[in-house]
């Protein structure tokens, strides 16, 4: 790999400049016939000077972005075992259907009589979500999981206010996703963490000690972030309800139980569903996602605008407080318009393709694959909790003690081995956590190869062969990057080289 080349490129690996270094003023990849416009209607606000945007012809643009794409790992290219993130296969049928003009080329404020197909799709997705969760209602507008959490907590807040009560605390387990405490704070609550006991599950006594008349909600991920099912969930729900609080479930891990367990049967009052996880809308390098929130009967009246109803004239969106049906008391609005339609189409296509039996089988295969990984690695790596696990297998750094290899080194060598690393250092309740979520999309051959690589790596680390771990990766488009320098003197945009850079 140290072979120098004249170009700086290596075979299929190309270095690529920024568009600002490639583009030229006056070049455009879009042919538009120019027009002259007067200033008459611009109120004296016509732009003075140029913007400085570089232009690329179409071939240059295509090459630039294709080259950039080749510097990314992707689920299409390999196993992507990021725990908690659910990197499952993204069916291409879903992409095709999301582009049907009747969904993709429809304006959110077009007359409702002209968008009945789009509304029918949302209604059908709502039916699937409420049936799979055993919950009576669902708010569709949240744009991501964290946005759904916020929506759920705001619904709870409204329900408490409607009862004429004031409750200020939200309880969150230490092991929770960071979004849980952030969402609760965002919604104006004080967050109180419930300590995680060594067994990896919520300790009922600690929870009991924290519950009280000022508690608005308990937020729980189930299966939890250690990959374990909270087996006391029914008792937890009963305890939470007894003190007058609501039971919020973080649905990030719903993919382990969809088609087998209905959260409504667990006493859940509100749960967001990450359509980009469980129902496989593509992650897209970090979004967009969608986070509809299913609601219990007690919370349903407080769901945010818009509402979708069906009557003799067909489907109808209720977008304003003045028009809501009897009994509805929406807490507000999460965003403009009606939610992530493009994600809705993909998720429904995924559901229809799988059917209820396929969804159940997918959950079972995800759990089976994670347990297979756990069973195949736990003798050489260290698992902090006894199995069986659910859809993800958790390991800690214990097996690396005394080897001089850290969890981070171990993860980075996986890159050299052609894999995306697992989630590391999360959950925080385990030292040097490594959380592996293989998903149901991997064949047994793929899993066996992955297991072989990790086993061999673990054995090599223990055998003192730490050279390849230090400073890994070596075979990626970049080696380890200086994050300290990036944070100390942030350079957040390109500037022409003759000008000083940002923050310098």
């Amino acid at each position: 790999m140290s072979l120098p080349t004249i170009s700086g490129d290596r075979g299929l690996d190309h270095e690529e400049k920024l568009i600002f270094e490639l583009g030229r003023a006056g070049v455009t990849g879009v042919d538009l016939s120019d027009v002259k416009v007067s200033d008459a209607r611009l109120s004296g606000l016509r732009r003075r000077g140029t913007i400085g945007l570089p232009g690329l012809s179409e071939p240059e643009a295509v090459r630039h972005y294709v080259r950039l794409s080749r510097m990314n790992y992707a689920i299409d290219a390999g196993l992507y075992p990021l725990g908690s993130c659910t990197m499952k296969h993204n069916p291409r049928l879903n992409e095709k259907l999301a582009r049907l003009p009747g969904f993709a080329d429809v304006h959110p404020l077009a007359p409702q009589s002209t968008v009945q197909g789009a509304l029918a799709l949302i209604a059908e997705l709502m039916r699937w979500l409420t049936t799979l969760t055993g919950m009576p209602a669902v708010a569709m507008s949240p744009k991501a999981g964290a946005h759904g959490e916020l929506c759920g907590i705001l619904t709870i807040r409204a329900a408490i206010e409607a009862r004429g009560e004031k409750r200020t605390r939200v309880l969150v387990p230490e092991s929770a996703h960071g979004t849980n405490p952030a969402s609760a704070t965002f919604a104006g609550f004080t967050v109180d963490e419930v300590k995680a006991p060594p067994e990896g599950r919520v300790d009922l006594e600690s929870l009991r000690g924290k519950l009280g008349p000022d508690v608005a909600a308990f937020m729980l991920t189930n299966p939890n972030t250690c990959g374990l099912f909270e087996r006391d969930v029914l008792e937890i729900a009963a305890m939470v309800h007894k003190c007058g609080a609501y039971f919020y479930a973080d649905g990030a891990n719903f993919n382990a139980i969809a088609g087998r367990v209905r959260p409504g049967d667990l006493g859940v009052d509100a749960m967001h569903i990450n359509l980009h996880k469980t129902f496989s809308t593509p992650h897209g390098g970090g979004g967009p996602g969608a986070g509809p929130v299913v609601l219990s009967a007690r919370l349903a009246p407080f769901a945010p605008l818009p509402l979708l109803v069906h009557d003799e004239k067909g489907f109808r969106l209720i977008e304003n407080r003045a028009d809501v049906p009897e009994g509805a008391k929406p807490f507000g609005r999460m965003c403009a318009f009606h939610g992530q339609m493009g994600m809705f189409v993909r998720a429904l296509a995924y559901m229809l393709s799988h059917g209820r039996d396929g969804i159940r089988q997918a959950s079972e295969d995800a759990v089976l694959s994670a347990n297979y990984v756990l069973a195949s690695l736990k003798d050489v790596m260290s698992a902090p909790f006894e199995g069986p696990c659910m859809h993800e297998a958790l390991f800690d750094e214990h097996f690396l003690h005394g080897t001089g290899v850290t969890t981070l080194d171990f993860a980075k060598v996986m890159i050299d081995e052609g894999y995306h690393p697992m989630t590391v250092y999360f959950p925080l309740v385990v030292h040097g956590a490594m959380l592996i979520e293989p998903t149901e999309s991997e064949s047994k051959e793929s899993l066996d190869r992955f297991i072989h690589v990790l086993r061999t790596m673990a054995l090599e680390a223990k055998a003192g062969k730490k050279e390849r771990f230090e400073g890994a990766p070596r075979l990626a488009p970049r080696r380890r990057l200086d994050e300290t320098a990036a944070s100390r003197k942030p350079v957040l945009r390109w500037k022409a080289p003759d000008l000083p850079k940002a923050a310098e």
Partner: protein
Amino acid sequence: MSETRFTEQHEWVRVEGGEGTIGITRYATEQLGDVVYVELPAIGKTIAKGAEGAVVESVKAASEVYAPVGGTVTAVNEALGADPAKVNSSPEEDGWFFKIKLTNAAELSQLMSEDKYVEYVKGL
């Protein structure tokens, strides 16, 4: 005569003439890693003993720095803005965070001496 006292959260305070200079210990910086940013209090702000005085950030963590003793902020280390690395290179000298005028000098007696702190760290 100045004396330096320490907390279990790894802050230090050095008192001279009723004014305390506050920072974090070398042990704390080793746990944090490379410091990338320090959020300092406003001058004139009154901080109670044990209340948040500053926030110190590494790439992957942000930690609150609590006031070892209560008082009113009289100065902050502006140099950390341009060069937060001083906290790593000289945590107990150039890398100080802020100074406060002590409200109650008796609070000092509740803190550890240097010897006690060294022993405390050994036990961690």
